């Protein structure tokens, strides 16, 4: 009788532990989802600023067609990219294109004096910072989820319950550059 009770108690305890681990995994996955949504908001804000920026630059440097078109193309590619990996790459391209655009503006004193341009530049630089921070938070959350999934005993049942390791929002070799806001010279 007492043996049965002990067994029953053991089953209950193990069950509670498993429920606890499951709930933690759910919470961790939820955090990564929210964190990605927050990056997404920032990325969308950046994409929304791009047409405005291109219009402004066009007024002063309309013959820099190649650079402007590259920015538009990168923006559209970023808007249609799906999946963490693809989106990170597309956004990376957009960052590069924007960097070129700002470098080009160096040659146009009138453009550099345009208030609208300056405001857009400041805003983009601010968003860039926010993206960097949000991306770090997301990567941190992904790292935590991935560790939790690989830990014992979660590793035994995590994948069968639909918990998969997630991809980092990685900027690859551009990472060091992106950590610093695009340099703005006056």
């Amino acid at each position, binding site marked *: 009788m007492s043996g049965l009770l002990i067994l029953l108690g053991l089953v209950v305890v193990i069950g509670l532990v498993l429920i606890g681990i499951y709930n933690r995994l759910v919470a961790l996955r939820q955090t990564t989802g929210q964190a990605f949504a927050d990056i997404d908001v920032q990325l969308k804000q950046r994409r929304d600023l791009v047409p405005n920026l291109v219009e402004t630059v066009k007024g002063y440097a309309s013959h820099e067609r190649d650079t402007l078109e590259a920015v538009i193309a990168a923006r559209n590619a970023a808007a249609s990219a799906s999946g963490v990996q693809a989106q990170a790459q597309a956004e990376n391209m957009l960052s590069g294109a924007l960097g070129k655009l700002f470098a080009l503006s160096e040659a146009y004193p009138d453009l550099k004096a345009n208030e609208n341009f300056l405001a857009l530049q400041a805003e983009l630089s601010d968003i860039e910072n926010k993206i960097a*921070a949000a991306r770090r938070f997301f990567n*941190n959350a992904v790292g*935590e989820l991935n560790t*939790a999934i690989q830990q014992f005993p979660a590793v035994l049942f995590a994948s069968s319950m639909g918990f998969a390791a997630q991809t980092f929002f990685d900027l690859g070799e551009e990472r060091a550059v992106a950590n610093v806001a695009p340099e703005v010279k006056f």
Partner: protein
Amino acid sequence: MFRSYGLRTHIWNNNAKSLALMLGFPVLLALVVFGIALLAVGSGYSSAIQHQSYDVSAPFEAINQALNDPSAPIPSASIPNTPLSLPDGNNSFESALDDALLLVFQIGPIILLATLIWFVIAYFGHQKIIDLATSAHPVTREEQPRLWNLLENLCISRGLTMPSLRIAESAALNAFASGLDDKQHAITVTTGLIDSLDDRELEAVLAHELTHVRNKDVQLLVIAIIFVGIFSFIGEIVFRNIWRTNLGRGQRSRRSGGGGSEGVVILIGLAIIAMAWLLALVIRFAISRSREYIADAGAVELTKDPDAMASALKKVAGNAQMEGAPAELRAFFLENESVGLASLFASHPPISKRIEALQNYAGAMV
């Protein structure tokens, strides 16, 4: 305890830690009751009375006397028909322990009740203290649009009732959360903080304080402080009376026939009460520190910006000293630098450790 490997696990572990620490208070209270029983038994009171007939008022009188009249000796010599029968040797020591255990069950409920009543009174007494103690004044959106919007955005993003926002005129860089319920919750920042921090850092500080509010840390700390108050009250009464008791004890122990064991029992009782007093303090500060780690991590969760919290802490470091703030209140601050080596009795972890935690668990690069 699981190891922390990220922000959430860091928060979970610290929550588990403060829960375990909170559970320490009732355990200490039980210990103190046992200590008091030992003192009572050691100085002549015997629970033999319980063997004869259960007399509810007798132990109550003993405690009541001890609590209400500090000048009266702890032993309830006034209790009638209490035989002073402690035989010599080991036997008497063991029987003294038995007596003390029996006594615990007699006086335990009374002390528990007294504690509860004290708690209710003290808890609501604390509401005012925080408000009165600082010269903070509430501000409106028009006066401080920048600060107001930062806080409001944070609250909207999590569907929280916005705490009232206050500003304390001080050059120090500090902030604190106060209030014991939704209507009273307030976040106060100093003018020095507003002037020195940029928007991201200010948002991180507001998020830190908002996390304190969300986690009900103010309530938790007030409870911890009240517990410590109870232990130090009991401790003070006992130790203030011990000298008087000792004076009278010489005669009594002679009467009961040589009482080495009585002295030992009293010493053990005293040691237990002193230890509980000290441990209660240690626990209170340990809870406070783990809540700070949680609030730092929670701020990162709210703002998604580990660097902002870390760089805000860096700016605050060394500039947080607010003149004229009472010591108890400082536990609620964003930062309260501990002086010297008293790290066991620090309400806040050192800034360097807090930044380290942000780097290790939240990915901060500052």
